[in-house]
């Protein structure tokens, strides 16, 4: 029986939104599902060299963000708040034994997850192929569609 297939479009570059694509992709690979992640727009931040563990989370525009004390939106916009929120979230992840984005990315590569960077958004945002980590292929919508058309699961994150 042929393996099941999954594709994920990773379009977000914040710390919290980088987790779901990588958690699902690594788990899928461990369940014998052939998986492709297509990184586009801000999702490219995840696969820029040396950037995976520098992603941030913003308390702005996110009323569900857990904070030690309720923080008014105006305060949340002050310099340093993003750094603080990011440090807090990383500490929470760490305490609960959650892998870092960099670790998950390595595990995904090791498990044979196919990584594709969107060439068009790279061009628009001035990202060079040499800015992207090794082991990533470059392509566009047709590359993703070719994989997606044979997949049982296709997610946009």
């Amino acid at each position, binding site marked *: 029986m042929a393996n099941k297939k999954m594709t994920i479009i990773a379009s977000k570059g914040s710390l919290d939104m980088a987790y779901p694509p990588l958690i699902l992709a690594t*788990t899928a690979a*461990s369940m014998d599902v052939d998986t492709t992640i297509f990184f586009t727009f801000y999702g490219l931040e995840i696969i820029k060299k040396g950037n995976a563990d520098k992603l941030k989370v913003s308390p702005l525009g996110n009323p569900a963000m857990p904070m030690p004390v309720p923080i008014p939106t105006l305060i949340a916009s002050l310099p340093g708040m993003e750094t603080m929120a990011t440090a807090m979230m990383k500490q929470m992840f760490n305490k609960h034994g959650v892998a870092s984005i960099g670790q998950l990315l390595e595990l995904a590569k090791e498990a044979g997850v196919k990584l594709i960077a969107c060439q068009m958004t790279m061009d628009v945002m001035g990202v060079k192929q040499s800015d992207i980590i090794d082991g990533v292929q470059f392509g566009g919508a047709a590359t993703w569609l070719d994989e997606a058309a044979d997949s049982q699961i296709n997610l946009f994150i």
Partner: protein
Amino acid sequence: MSADIKFDQFLDAKGMSCPLPILKTKKAVEALSKDQVLKVESTDAGSKNDMASWAKRTGNEIVKVEEGSGTFTFYIKKTA
């Protein structure tokens, strides 16, 4: 209560969160020979269902699951 099930390898996944217990289990089972048994201990409350789904998908057999004081113990036989 400890079981009398014999196992060939042990994986300590206590303190790890999703998806690490599954990823580590996959690697450990891959290293076994057919019909060998892996014992896994996990504290992730989601791992009870996760492990069952993983085994079903990969065609491996969970011989036994034990629960006690926040720890789940799985005996997984490599059948795939």
